[in-house]
């Protein structure tokens, strides 16, 4: 994904400046439920209007801009729910928007190119994405409910259920690397797959793969750098208060 000049984002910047600088952040605000137009309002004002922590927004937005940001007020347990909402929306975006779009382009492309080997390409992507979907599903069904349960036990001390065996450490291990096949796909398209009348479609496909890669990369950074440390803190907090 192309990168504009990275600007370091702060609360007093206008949201419009932030978005015009890196339009990919339109995905970010969408996943947070923020709508455009944003008029001349600052990041802080927009966040307040949408009941979202400015620190959280800026942490994510700066990741998109390639900066690891340490907010003045650190993230709190309260941020858990919005983070998970965000990630769930992000998952939906992958499965309901990106995946069908890319698959559509691939099918069109292999239709317009009758080299035999092109027939292998749709299957390659379908297989790849089913690995991605397994991972997303696992997060939705296992990890997120576990984290929300932790949070509710922290806020409601009276409810002392048995702590589940699961821990966020397992999550990190399960957080497998799905970049490899995506890279292979890009290489095959750019270096090897024979060309025939499919230039426009192939270019579109390659660019959307780069975009997906960029987004997946931010997605896993959010999980590794923000969510997992926060959950680890909650786990040890609960452990101590036992």
């Amino acid at each position, binding site marked *: 994904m192309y990168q504009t000049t990275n600007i370091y984002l702060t609360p007093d910047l206008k949201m419009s400046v932030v978005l015009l600088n890196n339009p990919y952040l339109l995905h970010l605000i969408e996943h947070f439920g923020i709508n455009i137009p944003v008029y001349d309002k600052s990041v802080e004002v927009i966040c307040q209007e949408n009941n979202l922590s400015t620190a959280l927004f800026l942490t994510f937005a700066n990741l998109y801009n390639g900066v690891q940001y340490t907010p003045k007020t650190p993230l709190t347990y309260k941020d858990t729910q919005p983070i998970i909402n965000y990630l769930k929306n992000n998952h939906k975006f992958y499965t309901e928007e990106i995946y069908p779009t890319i698959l559509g382009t691939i099918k069109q492309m292999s239709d317009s190119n009758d080299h*035999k*080997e092109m*027939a*292998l*390409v749709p*299957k*390659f992507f379908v*297989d*790849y994405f089913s690995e991605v979907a397994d991972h997303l599903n696992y997060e939705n069904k296992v990890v997120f409910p576990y984290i929300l349960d932790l949070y509710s036990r922290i806020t409601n001390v009276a409810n002392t259920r048995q702590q589940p065996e699961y821990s966020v450490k397992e999550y990190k291990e399960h957080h497998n690397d799905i970049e*490899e*096949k995506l*890279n*292979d*796909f890009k*290489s*095959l398209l750019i*270096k*090897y*797959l*024979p060309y025939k009348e499919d230039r426009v479609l192939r270019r579109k496909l390659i660019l959307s793969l780069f975009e997906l890669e960029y987004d997946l990369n931010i997605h896993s950074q959010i999980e590794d750098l923000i969510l997992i440390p926060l959950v680890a803190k909650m786990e040890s907090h609960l452990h101590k208060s036992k």
Partner: protein
Amino acid sequence: MNRNINIIVVEPSPLVSEGLAGILQKSEIQCQIAFKSSLEDIEQILAKKKYEIIIINPLLTFSNSKTFSGIITQFNLKSIGLIYAHFDPSHLQMFDATITVSDASSTIITTINKLLTELSQHGQNELKEALSKREIDVLKLLANGMSNKEIADKLYISTHTVITHRKNLSHKTGIKSVSGLTIYAVVQKLVSIETLSEL
């Protein structure tokens, strides 16, 4: 560029050669440096280990420039003239680049980095061209859905060797996953699409 580079410095003055070593060590270039004060016995050193770059005082090449260029070709070295006196420019043409004692550290590093880039591009082109016969054997079996163990048994080699071939395959093609390599094998007509066991 993360690979480790071997550099040989041929320079009689310890002040100059050690000063150069200091500059290199402080830079981002990951290198090991060998020192020699003359060209004597240099072939023995070069034969023992792969060196990428030779940095040499031009004075040492005057009397035996033929031998020197022979060495450069034989060991596929990039050469840098290390200059602190005035030389006839025609004599300096034999070097791929030059650095002088009055150069800033950053200029020296830039010069070396440029050569390293040329080297790595050259190396890659060479590599891409040919998969070895054994690598092709492994690739074919891999494309037909065999595991490392099965391939090892079939080719009478160890699993360890299969893994080495696979690493080289990925390095040369830029493709790591089995499904990606399968498509590559079909494109290169190493396996036919009809014979693929499962589609």
